[in-house]
């Protein structure tokens, strides 16, 4: 098993290199640094000198891959690729347009992101799995039918509507909680409760439907018939036999996103004014801050790969077939 996990870890290296190459190609080959400088500086100030200055300030004035002028090891290290892409592997992300250190910014913004994303994730999982289990328990009844119709309707509603509608209804009309903002310490819950509730509700439709199909697939299996032939009550059949087996496919989809919770949610954070990584990303996109977007792509991929490895590990915990072979 240890060898298995080790092998997955080794496999992560070429993938990260691939991600790095793709982002590098996107940011430096599709458009030259000159294009980006022109874009950032705006039409008025575009003079060749201004472009050169802009590039030099940000270290974009070096060759892409090989610096023939530098010589020695410098011919490889004194390049845009090494400075901007390879250094991300050691956690050096450079500076944003406003001159702040990206790595530090990321460190301080992870907390608020997690404060929203983690409760949303846990509560959402609990709610949707319970709902799906209930629907599967009452399968082929009117309750199940209308439950599914409701799920489809809920997943047909735009995520923006949940946020805008929720803000309007709960915060503006009923004035139950503040519309947006973020506080420190214990006071934070007043700001957290609305985004979390909205996050959970907006995920109900698709997740419940998805888990319901997983449960129904298990219900039709032979071992369920065996369990019933033992005279077990239907609740025991569901909670002891079906739930445990259905957990395996559910885990595949769920564990992989856990590390990505650090990244926060773009929409929620931006609407509710939460100083997390999601709103950081969105601000960067809107300000066309390439360095920040590039860093977030890299961190996102790292977290995704961590998620894949976690998925493998969690399999070994729930599925004896993998644990013992």
């Amino acid at each position: 098993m240890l060898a298995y996990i080790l092998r997955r870890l080794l496999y992560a290296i070429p993938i990260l290199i691939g991600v790095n190459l793709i982002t590098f190609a996107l940011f430096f080959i599709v458009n030259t640094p000159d294009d980006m400088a022109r874009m950032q500086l705006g039409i008025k100030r575009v003079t060749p000198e201004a472009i050169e200055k802009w590039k030099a300030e940000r270290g974009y004035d070096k060759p892409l891959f090989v610096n023939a002028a530098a010589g020695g090891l410098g011919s490889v290290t004194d390049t845009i690729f090494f400075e901007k892409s390879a250094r991300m592997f050691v956690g050096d992300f450079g500076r944003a347009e406003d001159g702040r250190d990206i790595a530090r910014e990321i460190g301080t913004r992870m907390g608020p992101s997690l404060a929203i994303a983690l409760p949303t994730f846990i509560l959402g999982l609990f709610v949707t799995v319970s709902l799906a289990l209930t629907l599967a328990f009452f399968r082929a009844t009117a309750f199940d039918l209308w439950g599914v119709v409701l799920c489809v309707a809920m997943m047909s509603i735009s995520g923006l509507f949940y946020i805008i509608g929720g803000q309007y209804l709960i915060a503006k009309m009923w004035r139950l909680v503040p519309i947006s903002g973020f506080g420190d310490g214990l006071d934070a819950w007043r700001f957290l409760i609305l985004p979390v509730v909205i996050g959970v509700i907006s995920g109900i439709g698709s997740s419940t439907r998805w888990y319901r199909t997983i449960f129904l697939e298990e219900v039709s299996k032979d071992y369920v018939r065996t369990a019933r032939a033992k005279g077990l009550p239907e609740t025991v059949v569901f909670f002891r036999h079906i739930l445990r087996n259905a957990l395996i496919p559910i885990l595949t989809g769920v564990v992989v996103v856990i590390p990505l919770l650090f990244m926060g949610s773009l929409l929620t954070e931006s609407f509710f004014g939460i100083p997390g990584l999601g709103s950081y990303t969105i601000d960067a996109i809107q300000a066309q801050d390439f360095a920040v977007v590039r860093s977030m792509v890299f961190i996102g991929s790292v977290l995704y790969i961590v998620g894949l490895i976690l998925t493998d590990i969690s399999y070994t915990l729930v599925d004896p077939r993998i644990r013992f072979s």
Partner: protein
Amino acid sequence: MAEPMLTVTDLRLGFAAGRRTLAAVDGISFTIAKGETFALLGESGCGKSVTAQGILRLLPAAGRVLGGSVGLNGAELLALPEAAMREYRGGRMAMIFQEPATSLNPVLTVGRQIGEVLERHRGLSGEPARARMLELLRQVGIADPERRLDEYPFQLSGGMKQRVMIAVALAGEPELLIADEPTTALDVTVQAQILDLLAGLQAERGMGMLLITHDLGVVARMAHRIGVMYAGELVEVASRADFFAVPRGERDALGVRHPYTQALFAALPEVARRGQKLVTIPGQVPSLAAMPGGCRFAERCPQVMAVCREQSPPWREVAAGHAVRCHWQGAAAVDASVRHAVTELDLEPGRAFLEVADLKVHFPIRKGILQRTVGHVRAVDGVSLAIAPGRTLALVGESGCGKTTVGKALLQLIAPSGGSVRLAGNELVGLAGRRLRAARRHMQMVFQDPFASLNPRLRVGEIIAEGMGALGLERERAAQAAAVLALLQQVGLPAEAAERFPHEFSGGQRQRIAIARALAVQPELLICDEPTSALDVSVQAQILNLLKALQAELGVAYLFITHNFAVVEYLAHDVAVMYLGRIVERGRAEEVLRTPRHPYTRALLSAVPVPRLEGGEQRIRLPGETPSPANPPGGCHFHPRCPQATDICRQNYPESTVLSETHSVACHWPG
């Protein structure tokens, strides 16, 4: 007869299909006494499994109880509320299912799965429960029960899983055990073990048993009384003695047995029928949606009369405890004259045109961080064969012995790891491209599963013509179409079949299409990989007849891969027996079947349940199951299960001993 324990009266079960409910079981009645085994015998789709599920009220979601009553020791089960019914399920009556591999929960330990029955029905938990579980596992013949209790189903072999299923069923101390095809998914040597176990347990505990099966041999081995089902109805009920004791063809002449039962017996392939056509049942079982009003067998019955189509026949007692539901009372229903001989093309083995020497197929096992090859699954490990034109070589073995791999390796569908396959003197191993394609013209394959071997998206005509096109035989459309029609006729299908799609055909018809496809390139050798194992007995007879007729007509040779000895006896000229990737005995059919010399061959032959009263007195029972080919036992592969094994067997793999010109055996102590 003892007091009946289970009384099923006029039970009717059906399935909801849209706005209608179709009756799958239409008014069957029978009783089972304490300590008695009642076998429900029938072909697929006759409603026997539905009956079993209906008694336990475990019908699938669309199933409906339409009427009748099920009484267990006076209690009416169909009227019980669901909660009370659960007291019966797993407690006073228990069930064993066909597929042990899927019927156990994969993520719960064996102990947990037995324990929940003890807790539910016997109120046992903790230490006493564990003690009881160990006792149960010992009773069902599981060695080292302490370890097994904490293992998961995937760690057990197929036979062991079924033993655990039996332990689960026994845990509630049931009065009635329902066994739904309990051994169909198992190998023949394991089947023998499980049947012995069930018979022993039943006698010991005095349980009633309802045995659902399609196998006449299993019925003869197990049942006290037998009910024959056809299209949702019982057509005959008899005691074992009455059912089997009659020498076929004599008292049948008095019309004692139902024509359907007679046809089932007559369709069985066996050695006495070599060279004869098997009796087949024409037509198909009527569909649930279109059940005829009168006798349901009328359309397929050789003795059909006008009254049969109008009235459903009443029960008629032909002897004490032997009743038949048939209007016909005359002489033998199955006309022996249809069993005219086919020309037996038992050519003297000429020069073999396919010679296989030391064929090896090894699959690497990869492990570790770098996925290095740490070992090999020796699926085929040095097989040598020879097939002469126009003859049938049967390759016999249990699942996992590598017989299917041999077939595919001959066709180069799997690249052999070593050895040689010579077709008319030309080496095939390592061949590629056009030369391999040219060689494939001479060999073709018919696969096991008629539902997976035809592309559902192509018309039958296109399926059959595929080989001709690929091998460049008939390029012109008109010539191709003519060839397809000729082939369809040859395998007994109407010409319009060419325009239809596979899903419109039954299993037997699909297998005919598959045979036509293989014959389209006029091969000299047909590799038949268990072509009848997915088919009912009466359909199997049709396919075997067809294969025999084609051999007589075209002189094609068969490599017949099978686990079914009855088919071997009926069809094969030569036999090779495989165990764990190697051939342990080979020779003429009569040599191997009459005078088997390898202990494995002898055990296999004696493990086959025969559909007769006599026989089975000196059964050889093999312990354990076939080991994994990834890690075969040292020395003779068979020694851990061999009753005659000695030290030399544990050390050296035996050389092949030549017993006659054609008969050889790989054993240190050929009996």
